[in-house]
């Protein structure tokens, strides 16, 4: 099987596109696929550098000798978190500015994360395993039915202080304690959606309100329609004004022989 992955993004209304603080990285080979979606926290400092570091390291993309993509289990993630914090400190830009140094020392950077690995794409029964900290959410849909929500959040669970991946060493134990894991099987035709909190909250609320055609709408969005959807829901007050990221995954029986790109 093959996983078609498409990412959509909309920056917070009032900000510039270069101020978008989410992140999404995907990768695939004939046997497996991996992705991560990150939401840099509003209150954090230098958060885009943290999001970039986490995203690249989760996929094993960066050039550090110790940068293997983490195993998605408790021990693997604990080791990875500690390595990420060390690398953050080691790679901090040199600055003679007292305000920036103090900001870095006091606040650090933090982000929610949802990471996932799909294995067995070269066989009949691929599976997915995911790890999450915070309120970036994965939705697994089959035949227009929602199979699972991970983390299992309800409409009232989206607050201003989700669990986060933090640069500060003192947060390591808390991160380990609150790390969540989930897994599931995949079939051809399945859809998965990974959304950062503003959109995740909207999806969960829409599903709870039995909005007809929700999954079909998300499954068939084009980029321009995505932007229109976000703008409309913000205008209606149905979606919080925040950076929005959606990663859509479609499991297909085989890799397409041709790809048509439209601009």
């Amino acid at each position: 099987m093959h996983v078609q992955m498409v990412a959509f993004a909309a920056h917070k209304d009032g900000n510039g596109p270069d101020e978008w603080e989410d992140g999404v990285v995907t990768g695939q080979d004939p046997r497996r696929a991996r992705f991560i979606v990150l939401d840099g926290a509003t209150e954090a400092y230098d958060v885009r550098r943290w999001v970039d570091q986490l995203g690249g390291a989760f996929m094993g993309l960066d050039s550090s000798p110790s940068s293997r993509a983490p195993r998605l289990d408790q021990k693997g993630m604990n080791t990875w978190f500690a390595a990420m914090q060390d690398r953050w400190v080691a790679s901090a830009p040199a600055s003679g500015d007292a305000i920036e140094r103090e900001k870095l020392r006091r606040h650090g950077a933090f982000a929610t994360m949802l990471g996932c690995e799909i294995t067995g794409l070269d066989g009949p029964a691929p599976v997915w395993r995911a790890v999450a900290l915070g309120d970036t959410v994965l939705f697994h849909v089959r035949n227009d039915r929602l199979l699972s929500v991970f983390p299992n959040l309800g409409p009232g669970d989206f607050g201003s202080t989700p669990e986060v991946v933090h640069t500060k060493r003192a947060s390591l134990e808390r991160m380990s304690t609150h790390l969540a894991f989930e897994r599931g099987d995949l079939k051809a035709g399945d859809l998965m959606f990974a959304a950062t909190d503003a959109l995740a909250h909207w999806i969960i609320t829409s599903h709870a309100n039995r909005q007809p055609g929700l999954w079909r709408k998300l499954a068939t969005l084009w980029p321009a329609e995505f932007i229109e959807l976000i703008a409309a829901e913000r205008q209606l007050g149905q979606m919080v004004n925040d950076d929005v990221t959606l990663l859509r995954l479609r499991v297909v029986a085989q890799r397409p022989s041709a790809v048509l790109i439209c601009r």
Partner: protein
Amino acid sequence: MYEQPISRKNRGCIVFLLDRSDSMKQKWGASEWTLAEGATAAVNDILFELCLRSQVEPGKARYYFDIGIFGYGIKPNSQEEGVAPAFDGVLAGQTLVPLPDLRSNPIAFREVPSEDRGGPPSKLPIWVRPLHGRQTPMCQAIAVAGAHVYDWAALHLNSFPPIVINITDGMVTDNPYQGANLDQWAERLTSIATNDGNALLFNIFISPATGASGLLFPASSAGLPYPGPELFKISSPLPERMVTSARTHNVPAQPGARGFGFNANSQLLVKFLEVGTRLDLSRD
């Protein structure tokens, strides 16, 4: 009311009125500082905090605030009595300064010991120097602040209303000023409004008395000696969000709490300033 978060589109305005009368030369309780040195240090510290809050990404501070500091008492250049902007250096003479300009133009740095064992000291920027002399033209200070705040509010109608914080060791000596008394000048100032509410006037009285018990954000001035009731009367009620902020600073602010402090030592002054300037940032 008092709900608008601070953003680049709807920035905030904070004005400090700093008593520079001669009595500020007195030692502040058991500390090593004079009242003038301690108050100035607290103002420099809160300016540093505001710069930190506006530092969202490396290399630049977001323009979230316009900041003013007016000293009243001795005027630094002429040595006469009056009210004058307290910024020095590149910012000398400027009334309301955009925060990025403030951040870029400290007048000096002071060393602060490192919190890490054996670590080098930090060098923190300062923008205001202590000064004392002459008497206490507080009415004039409120009048001057009001004029600048009035113009600012007219240009920022959708912003959180301006906050004026008056730090004094007490007794006003220009009451009345231009035909209006202290109450009237305070009322004129707090009648200035944006769409989010009226301007806020907070007052904190600092005392040289060693061992004097201080209080913050009371709901009543009962039992307070002069000038407590007078300053309490002209202090605005604390908005709900600041009441919540006070409680997170372990200050038990009750319903009806005013933006007022009495007999504050240096720690209470710092808490007062932190609560009085703690506004929601929307990071826009």
